[in-house]
């Protein structure tokens, strides 16, 4: 394994094809050619990523062959070659997919393709210059996103994570709405704050692993190597006397990922960024970027520092933050007058379920959290696009000024209903499964971890989030889509073929995931998630005590 291991180049093509597309966009002649190249590139990447399905052939229920016997044992499409070998340091170019990353890779390529189609009308935007630069940055962003989900070397992960920041800053800052500069720099500063803490953890992990083992940056190695795990769990002193090394690392990583998720105290960048970004960028922000926080927690925090995750105080704090996100996000959404901001806050609320599901560390919890990530990744871009369609026509996002749109645009109205009900969590649509799994898992968490006595009350409180969600979405729909037709919207054009072609796949997926959750999604993830749960559960139980920083 040290000389390099390349199982075919498909994944490399998936990750870097958008970069090649960006270069092609730089030299393409004319605006139309640029747009065509961009859409073609994203479509091609989507097709290539569908090629990953054959590894996860769910019709053969041989879980072990697909997911391996334990976490990290079976990765697919691995490319593991030494990248920088200098002195004692070896950084590998290590990418691969397993049950955790595979659904997210598909989601990324799909949403990127749909967002590229949604960007086709860039000429009609308020700021319509620089289409070439827009699509170049867009495609570079896609490479960054795909790289984050497939990288398994911490340094590589960090590089891809940061690579996303620059294009996003420009995409929001140049082509966004009225307060775009403020939103862009807020996004950049906030996310960078989290990233730099992750950098500290990166260095710390490397040198800690150096002390017991050959120093490595391999994320799988960190999670599966017994000696490294023992060294990481040891509550050594970090800098100050009361600070325990594993807890500090977990907290730093949590802050970094919580900013992305986003978890309630760290969520304030989201409404600004989502609202001011142009519609396709909002789709990508909500659909993919938010999932990176959850993915980071599941890939890095939980497998590598399971003893800290199982600390009762830590689990309680995380679960509480999840519940607060659910309720606070929903309440904020209810108070919004701006349509897009309402959808943005609904994202905060939905992602609260993800954190809650992870905090309880049971099978249902993790499965629910992952499902909710994918489901939200389908419903949220759909909702943002729906808002964008209205904004393109009515040039307003004020809910008070909208009304009776279903009468003006029947086809659009039907698709809008589908999208918003998916966001609401109507049974039969994708949003329901994730929420129910998380809530049921939280309700029964005390079965797996008896010290989680707070789990049952928390599940009941979180369930109110469902009511609140129904509240704001139904109320919004009544005000925007139902009601008498307004004079000024009588002549609004119906949704065009392009817009329907963006909404239909998302709607179809929402239905598919709602009706056949197992065949369409759970099958592809449950193997890895189950291994993760047992990995966390089996983390040295005698080391699970009140660790230094919290609780003493």
């Amino acid at each position, binding site marked *: 394994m040290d000389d390099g291991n390349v199982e075919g180049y498909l994944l490399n093509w998936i990750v870097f094809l958008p970069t090649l597309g960006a270069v092609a966009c730089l030299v393409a002649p004319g605006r139309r050619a640029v747009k065509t190249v961009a859409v073609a590139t994203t479509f091609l990447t989507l097709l290539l990523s569908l090629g990953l399905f054959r590894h996860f052939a769910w019709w053969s229920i041989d879980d072990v062959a697909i997911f391996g016997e334990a976490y990290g044992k079976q990765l697919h499409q691995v490319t593991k070659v030494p990248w920088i070998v200098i002195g004692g340091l070896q950084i590998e170019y290590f990418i691969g997919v397993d049950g955790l990353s595979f659904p997210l890779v598909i989601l990324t390529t799909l949403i990127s393709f749909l967002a590229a189609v949604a960007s086709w009308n860039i000429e009609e935007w308020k700021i319509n210059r620089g289409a070439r630069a827009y699509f170049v940055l867009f495609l570079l962003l896609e490479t960054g996103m795909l790289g984050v989900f497939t990288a398994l070397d911490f340094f590589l992960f960090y590089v891809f994570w940061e*690579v996303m920041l620059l294009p996003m800053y420009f995409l929001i800052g140049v082509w966004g709405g009225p307060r775009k500069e403020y939103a862009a720099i807020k996004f950049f500063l906030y996310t960078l704050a989290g990233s730099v803490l992750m950098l500290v953890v990166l260095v710390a992990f490397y040198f800690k692993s150096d002390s017991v083992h050959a120093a490595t940056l391999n994320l799988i190695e960190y999670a599966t190597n017994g000696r490294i795990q023992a060294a990481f769990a040891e509550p050594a002193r970090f800098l100050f006397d009361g600070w325990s090394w594993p807890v500090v690392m977990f907290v730093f990583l949590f802050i970094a990922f919580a900013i992305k998720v986003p978890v309630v105290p760290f969520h304030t960048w989201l409404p600004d960024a989502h609202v001011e970004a142009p519609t396709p960028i909002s789709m990508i922000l909500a659909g993919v970027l938010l999932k990176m926080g959850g993915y980071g927690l599941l890939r890095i925090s939980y497998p590598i520092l399971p003893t800290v995750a199982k600390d009762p105080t830590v689990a309680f704090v995380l679960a509480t933050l999840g519940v607060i996100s659910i309720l606070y996000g929903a309440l904020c959404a209810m108070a919004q007058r701006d349509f897009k901001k309402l959808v943005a806050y609904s994202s905060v609320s939905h992602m609260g379920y993800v954190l809650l599901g992870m905090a309880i560390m049971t099978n249902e919890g993790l499965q629910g959290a992952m499902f909710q990530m994918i489901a939200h990744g389908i419903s949220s871009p759909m909702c943002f696009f729906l808002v964008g369609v209205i904004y393109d026509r009515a040039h307003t996002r004020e809910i008070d000024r909208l009304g009776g749109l279903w009468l003006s645009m029947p086809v659009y109205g039907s698709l809008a209903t589908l999208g918003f009900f998916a966001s609401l969590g109507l049974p039969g649509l994708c949003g329901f499964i994730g929420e129910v799994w998380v809530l049921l898992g939280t309700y029964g968490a005390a079965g797996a971890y008896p010290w989680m006595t707070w789990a049952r009350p928390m599940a009941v409180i979180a369930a109110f989030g469902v009511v609140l969600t129904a509240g704001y979405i139904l109320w919004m729909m009544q005000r925007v889509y139902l009601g008498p037709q307004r004079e000024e919207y009588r002549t609004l054009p119906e949704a065009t073929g392009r817009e329907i072609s963006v909404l239909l796949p998302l709607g179809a997926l929402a239905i598919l995931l709602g009706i056949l959750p197992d065949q369409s999604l759970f099958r592809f993830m449950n193997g890895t998630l189950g291994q993760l749960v047992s990995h966390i559960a089996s983390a040295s139980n005698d080391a699970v005590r009140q660790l230094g920083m919290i609780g003493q």
Partner: protein
Amino acid sequence: MTMPRLLADFWVPSAADLHWFTPELAVLCTIVAVLLAAIAVGRNPHITAMLVLLGAGCAILFAQVAESRMTDGVAGPAPARAAPMLIADSFSAFFKTFLLVLLAAVTGLWLIGLRQRPPQAARLFAGNAPEFFTLLLGSALGMMLMVGTLNLLMIVLAIELASMPSYAIVGFNKSDRLGAEASLKYVVFGAITAACMLYGVSMLYGLYGTLDIPTIAHLAVRRAGESPGTAVLTSVGLVTFGAGIGFKIAAVPFHFWCPDVFEGAPVEITAWLSIASKAAGLGLALRVAGALTSAPSAGQVESLWGPMAIAVGAAAAVTCTVGNFAAYRPDNVKRILAYSSIAHAGYMLMAAAILPLTGPHGEATPSSSTFSALVAYLVMYLFMNVGAFGVTAIVSWQTGSASISAFDGLGRRAPWLAVPMAVCLFSLVGLPPLGGFIAKWWLLYALGRGAAAQSWLWALVIVLVLNTLFSLYYYLRIVRVMFVKTGPHEAERPPLAAPLGGLVLVNACAVMLLIGGTIGIGPVKSLADDAASRIFDSVAGPPIAARH
């Protein structure tokens, strides 16, 4: 003293000794050639510039040849081989090459400025080319010597040789009031810190009877327990001596000259000072710190030099934080970049806080990763700063102002200037996949490695990454003005005509940063490791009789 007696005692370096110092001699000859050419063929700026470039090229060649023949750190001319006044090793060879490459870049910028400057200033610069380059070469010579010595007197000499021409060249444009003010401030500060430095040197000499730093380290360790007064006096001596080094790198609290001098100086000189004086000062600081702490009796190392490391670390942390926060206010890009260079000096100074230590497996590890971290950082820093100052130079010459508003809408007016500027600025922040991130990474690597034995270094790690965050804002201000800001005045701004040479220079810097951050990570690090591989080791063994 009779003549024969004098001649008998007179020591002359041999040819073999001088072989190692041909780069310095080449620079000396270039100065002479520049001055003579002015008399011989008349004052022609282009001839002068060509001579300078030729001389720099020869010196680089000599440095590379000398380095390839080096097997060990080589002691230079000195009557007592064990207490040399000059040192040539791979570390100093790197710095010589570095400074000369920078000199060539500054000369290139100056040549561009000949045509781009406002006519009055251009005439002044063109007409006084020999003087300009004499001062510049003198400063370069001083800096080359700074990194090649461990002798207290030689350090003072080199710092003064580097500083004095700088005082004059900062105020070169005599009709510019701001430049004259900058020059005066520089002189006053430099004089005060030179006095401090000499005070420290005299104190150390008085205590230990020698000017050789490794010997002083040796004696300090041996006499550490003698009396509390010795330790106090040694610290006072070292701290005041450090004032001189701190002045060159503009570390807090010796940084107050930096923004005003950078703002008032001609922009090529700002570029020169921001890179060269930091590089030379930091190389010297690292060498001195390494020499002080590599004295044998490792058991006493931490107790004796531990406080010094913590003091240097604290100074570094304060420097970068102050530099970053102070950059929020100014509107003049040269001033912003001045504060940014203070911050970067702070980052690099953290390397000096990592002492040779006992490695995680029990054996003593050389601090070569620290030296190589500094070298790698400087390589990237060179490109970042040359690119940023290059664009600033062109914009300020074309628009007549160096304030942020001069960069308005540059993304549309001159994309081939704006994009490299953005690349350089983001590299200065330290974002992947650019070279600046790799520079910070190697620094973090060295700090993390040191932290395995001295866990307080984690505080420096956290300060470093937090400062990366703090610095984002002011670099982003410039990027925002170039690309993001939309305003009503946009339509009236005419496109900017940039000279071809300038475009080539800044775009080359941007490309080097992109390469350095991706595929060039390995080569840069091996270059740095190479430079740090053969460092002149301090003398081990019984103390040396004070003969110099």
